[in-house]
């Protein structure tokens, strides 16, 4: 070849890329949420057939370069949204814009869910129902301060019974009914894969409500919450999971192009107890009373025969207030090619309606993920939260402001620490009650994912949840001489407690995924979990403080102390095999082995099996129903356990201090716990069947599940025969409890236009709970404060209500009838939630949530005592039936006061407006949204005699349902501004 030819060849070769470039173009655009218009970060945009594509950035923008010219089809995928394909004409050397709007997918078959195993598990492969709460979306719509409020009314089958409206207090939580008598019916919680402590914070008793460890978690940090409902789903979680598992996933950053996005939010509002939510008390004006104006000052000027009416706590400005609420948060999220991060800080302050009630929280969180290689990634999630709660006295104590005002005879001047309208304690004294609990909660978890081969995935998680609290109860030396809180504390009293709970967990999971042939795929999973729970608490009390200024225990004249300690260890391992056929039929079998230090010495280990099937029938070749987008049939059966508490199996004695006959103080032996060496975890078996359906291009979605769960070897606190010398109860595996019901969630989008998008969601659930058998021939177990109105009785729901009715005999005497009357269950048997969301006028969003619960009963002690005090209208009404009046006032009569508790509430309502993007961009912002929201807006209807049946004197009590001077859930109204920049 001569040099000219060589030169030509070189020129030609050099020109080739240019020529090639001249044949390609570029595709750009934005992927947005069709409903909200928000950019979707992390969506995959690929050019079909060419294996090129890009991921969208935080604003939903993408760029695909070097796309060969011609008609191309781009396909956009984003979890939770419908996949869309768009044809674009790529012109060489030019940029073509393709903006794509994605609508939410009803069923999200390929959504990755948490199941406790390693590797990604898609929804389509799982045979049981899993509910997910998009926490970030919820927090955008409503005013929620706690995880409990976040979960309320969001998931069919999850029932929350808030105890009271007192700020900082706990609620009772059930998934698919109560499966245990004496064990816990509360689900276990995981945050980012690490077990966390829930339950009380160890506050000193206020004779009712308890504080909640869940309140330390800032709901604004949560991305999503998965509710794993029953043993069929929770097998992998083992001997503590029979009551369900709640997995909380906190927010993460976004990998890809370097990006950083800030969010700042301010929310302010107030909580109130409207006067219309309180009853009216009545007192008859008599001549005797008019003649004694010192005792009856409010009746001066009235006429005999009139009624003096009074609404409790309506006149005294020191009784109630509008409790202010302030929330501030700042977060930043982002990432780069091999890392992502999310960091947040917040300060929440909530004043209750009582002057000595508040709940404050400060929290920080940092979530970091690193991807050093395709085979390895690891993450560290850490959070710290400080909670400070002050609780007032109410519920079941005579010194509470509610009982003091509710039972005050209207118009009367009370002596001692009372006042007009307050018969035991007036607000200026009640508000000095000082019961505070502080907590420092530190939670850290680290996860390593290692994939040495494409088909072999390892995951190791280690975590620590450390919750250190300090509770203090303080009474200043009484200067009034009235001893408003009793003589025992009149000289000054201080009590402190320092409970600390630490949970250490190690979780290893591995999965082997490989194709057995072209149609069949195997997914073999295995792993182990170890959890250690340590608890310790030191308390001290001091009586006789010289002055209010010196308030340490060491300053007191008489001091005492005590200490508590417990530790539990649990270890479990599992294996699971899943076979998938043509990615639409999945059969799974698993078994888990558990051992626990709380089991009796005669028990070594227990096994829990599981099996499930999932079939996406709509993808079968024979399925030709054009209206149906997706139809999945599923069934699952599995077992899980419910372990007893620490040391429950061991017979123990302890020592207490006694004064001996010679006056000396010495330690003395005391019988403590009867123990049971045969004690084992309860075993719950559950069968659930159901289907998931979406129709009419995702305009309609329906999830339906039927479940039937039976607990055997149910742990029961059985009375120890006192003739043994031991008292109280011991735990035995005795009986059988059944829960069955249905859950359905229907989502309908009647209007889906660019200008208006309207979604409606109906969530319906039923639960039929039954104590099938005690396991021996024991009589019903009767319990209840005030009166024994609740029972565990075979054939009836756990904790159901009975009542005693009164009638007038032939001799004219009103007396109790001999037979108790069965009333009904204490938990709702049917629940219906309706939520509606309308997006309109390019930026406005209206949301409302209605909640119906029914089929259950509540013991209305408030009205019972008002009836007996003859200050209720039912007993003073001149036209009332005298027999009913006499019956209502009769001691031990409860028929009129165990009342149906059905209700319909408007639980949440909000209106928000997102400013136009072009406007906020000029301010240097990406997004700005104003929201006006109200929580617990109104009780629209109820069969209950009081205003609000969703009330319980002991907020986290397992079965007691008593309205005993408990503050109801208050109305909260807030306004917020959220900006992204």
């Amino acid at each position, binding site marked *: 070849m001569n040099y000219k030819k060589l030169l030509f060849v070189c020129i030609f070769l050099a020109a080739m890329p240019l020529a090639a470039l001249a044949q390609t173009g570029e595709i750009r655009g934005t992927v947005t949420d069709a409903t909200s218009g928000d950019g979707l970060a992390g969506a995959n945009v690929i050019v079909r057939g060419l294996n090129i594509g890009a991921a969208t950035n935080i604003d939903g923008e993408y760029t695909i370069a070097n796309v060969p010219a011609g008609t191309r089809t781009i396909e956009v995928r984003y979890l939770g949204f419908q996949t869309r394909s768009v044809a674009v004409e790529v012109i060489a050397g030019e940029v073509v814009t393709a903006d794509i709007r994605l609508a939410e997918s009803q069923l999200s078959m390929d959504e990755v869910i948490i199941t406790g195993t390693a590797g990604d598990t898609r929804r389509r492969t799982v045979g049981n129902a899993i509910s997910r709460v998009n926490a970030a979306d919820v927090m955008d719509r409503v005013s929620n301060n706690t995880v409990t409020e976040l979960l309320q009314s969001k998931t069919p089958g999850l029932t929350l019974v808030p105890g009271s409206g007192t700020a900082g207090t706990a609620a009772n939580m059930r998934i698919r009914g109560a499966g245990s008598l004496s064990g816990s019916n509360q689900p276990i919680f995981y945050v980012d894969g690490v077990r966390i402590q829930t339950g009380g914070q160890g506050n000193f008793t206020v004779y009712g409500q308890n504080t909640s460890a869940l309140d330390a978690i800032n709901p604004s940090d949560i991305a999503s919450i998965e509710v794993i409902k029953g043993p069929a789903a929770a097998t992998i979680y083992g001997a503590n999971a029979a009551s369900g598992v709640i997995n909380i996933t906190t927010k993460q950053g976004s990998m890809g192009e370097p990006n950083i996005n800030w969010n700042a939010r301010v929310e302010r509002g107030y909580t109130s107890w409207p006067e219309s939510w309180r009853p009216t008390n009545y007192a008859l004006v008599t001549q005797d009373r008019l003649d004694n104006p010192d005792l009856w000052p409010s009746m001066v000027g009235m006429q005999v025969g009139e009624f003096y009416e009074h609404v409790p706590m309506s006149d005294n400005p020191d009784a109630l207030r509008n409790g202010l609420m302030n929330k501030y948060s700042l977060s930043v999220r982002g990432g780069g090619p091999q890392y992502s991060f999310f960091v947040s800080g917040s300060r929440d302050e909530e004043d209750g309606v009582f002057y000595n009630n508040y709940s404050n929280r400060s929290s920080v969180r940092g979530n970091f993920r690193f991807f050093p290689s395709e085979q390895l990634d690891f993450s560290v999630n850490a959070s710290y939260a400080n909670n400070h709660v002050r609780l007032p006295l109410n519920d079941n104590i005579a010194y509470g402001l509610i009982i003091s005002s509710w039972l005050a005879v209207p118009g009367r001047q009370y002596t001692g620490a*009372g006042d007009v309208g307050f018969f035991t304690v007036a607000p200026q004294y009640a508000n000095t009650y000082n019961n505070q609990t502080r907590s420092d909660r530190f939670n850290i978890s680290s996860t390593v994912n290692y994939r040495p081969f494409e088909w072999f995935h390892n995951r190791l998680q280690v975590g620590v949840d450390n919750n250190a609290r300090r509770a203090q109860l303080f009474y200043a030396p009484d200067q009034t001489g009235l001893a408003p809180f009793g003589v025992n504390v*009149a000289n000054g009293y201080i009590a402190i407690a320092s409970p600390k709970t630490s949970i250490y967990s190690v979780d290893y999971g591995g999965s082997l995924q*490989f194709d057995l042939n072209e149609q069949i795929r195997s997914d073999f999973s295995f792993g182990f979990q170890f959890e250690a729970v340590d608890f310790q608490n030191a308390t001290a009390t001091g009586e006789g403080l010289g002055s209010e200024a010196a308030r340490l225990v060491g300053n007191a004249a008489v001091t005492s102390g005590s200490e508590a300690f417990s530790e539990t260890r649990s270890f479990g391992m599992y294996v699971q095999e899943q076979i998938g056929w043509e990615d639409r039929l999945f059969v799974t079998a698993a078994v888990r082995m558990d051992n626990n230090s709380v089991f009796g010495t005669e028990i070594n280990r227990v096994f829990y099996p599981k099996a499930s099937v999932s079939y996406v029938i709509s993808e079968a070749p024979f399925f030709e129903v054009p209206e149906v987008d997706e139809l999945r049939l599923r069934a699952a059966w599995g077992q899980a356990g419910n372990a007893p508490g620490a040391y429950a199996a061991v017979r*123990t*004695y302890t020592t207490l201090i006694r*004064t001996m006959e010679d006056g000396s103080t010495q330690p003395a*032996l005391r019988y403590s716990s009867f123990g049971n060496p045969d004690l084992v975890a309860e075993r719950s078996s559950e069968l659930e069947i159901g289907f998931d359906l979406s129709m009419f291009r995702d305009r309609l979605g329906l999830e339906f599940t039927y479940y039937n769960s039976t607990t055997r070897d149910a742990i029961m606190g059985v*009375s120890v*025969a006192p003739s043994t*010398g031991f008292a109280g109860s011991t735990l035995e595996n005795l009986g059988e409890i059944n829960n069955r019901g249905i859950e359905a969630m229907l989502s309908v989008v009647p209007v889906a236009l660019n200008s208006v998008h309207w979604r409606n969601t109906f969530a319906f659930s039923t639960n039929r709970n039954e104590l099938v058998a005690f396991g021996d021939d024991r009589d019903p177990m009767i319990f209840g404060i005030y009166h024994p109105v609740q029972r565990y009785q075979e054939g009836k729901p756990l904790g159901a209500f009975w009542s005693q009715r009164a009638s007038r005999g032939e001799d004219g005497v009103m007396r109790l009838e001999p037979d108790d009357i069965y009333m009904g269950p204490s938990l709702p048997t049917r629940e219906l939630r309706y939520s509606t969301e309308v997006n309109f006028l390019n930026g406005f969003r209206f949301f409302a949530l209605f909640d119906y619960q029914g089929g259950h009963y509540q013991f209305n002690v408030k009205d019972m005592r008002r009836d007996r005090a003859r200050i209720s209208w039912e007993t003073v009404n001149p036209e009332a039936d005298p027999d009913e009046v006499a019956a209502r006032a009769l001691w031990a009569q409860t028929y009129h006061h165990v009342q149906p508790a059905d209700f319909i509430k408007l639980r949440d309502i909000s209106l928000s407006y997102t400013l136009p993007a072009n406007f906020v961009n000029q301010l240097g912002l990406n997004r700005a949204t104003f929201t006006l929201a109200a929580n617990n807006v109104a009780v629209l209807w109820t069969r209950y005699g009081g205003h609000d049946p969703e009330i319980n004197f002991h907020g986290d009590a397992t079965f007691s349902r008593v309205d005993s001077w408990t503050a109801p859930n208050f109305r909260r109204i807030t306004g917020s501004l959220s900006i992204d920049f």
Partner: protein
Amino acid sequence: MNPIEHFIKTIMLSKKHFLMHGILALLLFSAAACDGILDVSNPGAIEEEELTDPALEQTMINGVIGEFQYTHSYASQWTGTVADELLLDHTFAQTIPMVLRTADENNVYVNNIYSFWQRSRASADDAASRLQVIHGDDAWSKLNMLKALAYGGYSYVMLAETFCEVPINVSAAYSPEDLFGMAIDRFEQALEVAENALAAGEPGARVEQLRNMAYLGAARASLNLGEMTDAESYASQVDEDFEMWNRHSENSARQYNPFRDPTTGANNRYLSPGLPFQNLDDIRVPHTAEKLTSLVEGTMMYIPYQPYSFSDWTPEDSLEFQRSTDVRIASALEARYIIAEAQGPTGYTLNLVNERRLFVGHDEVNLAGDELMAELREQRARDFYLTGKRFGDLRRYINLYGIDLFPSGTDPFQGQTYGNVTCLPIPQSERNSNPNL
């Protein structure tokens, strides 16, 4: 598929299968080897097998006395409300059936009194058994054995006086007669141990005190059985200066004298002397001169002061109860009352009655027969007011003499008619768990 691809795929599949089987084997091995990591400690508890450790002997015996003291004080208050010693008005529903004499097996106070006495009894019986394990035959000469038997015997007496029937350690129910017999057995054993203990050099004063306690307990049990000769015989051997006290302290809530709280505080008081103990002009049963406010709005009531058998009582002053007030639960005076009742309306009885009347500044009487015995009962009630004897006394008067002094008619605070409880039932907690009932 070509042979090379087939070979690679087979190797890869084999590798995965090998890995899978290896993992299964590792898991099974781990399952067998992991129990050690589940060991936990329990520093706040003593386990059953440790109780025969000699180092715990004194703690065990302290528990016998401690349980007895606490229970005796608690039960004295609540059986006093069922008897005629006390009235109450309270907001807590379960208190009302006690004072109205309608308490049933579901009542929390019935359950508490029963449970606490059973724990006291079991503590004593178990202590006696464990002392035999620790000391063998030498146990029958130990002061601690004497304590266990004496206090244990009294626990049986209290159970018999309070309850209609009582099981022991999940047995069938024993009648009060059976229980009094068991008490006497223990007192007899205690007397033998007392002799042995003195011979063995145990502290004489303490042995003598407990021996007197055993004599008095046997006398009390015999009296309740109607065995008057034995009752008099036992009682006559009690030393004339004998006293036994229940000790209380400010130290902890369980050591408080339980009469302090319900009788103190303008809006806290809920105990009042029963009608038979009001306005007697008797320094042994003092109460406030005027009726005072109480826990229940609108209820005004006399409030008792420390009576004769309480440690701060003086003839000159009327004092409120304190948390540290001790209670004399057994004494030579009680022995004299037993002798008098056992003898019947004799000169001894008349002398005792007049001595007690003169003690409080009342005139002597010259009574005989039933009137004398009635006066004896009256004086006994005042001397031992609020010391836990009245309920058993009222039961004995019905059982032996057909005399019913339980309150009847209408309760002045509740406005309701009294029931007819004269003995407390076995509580539901026992019925639920005792297969022999």
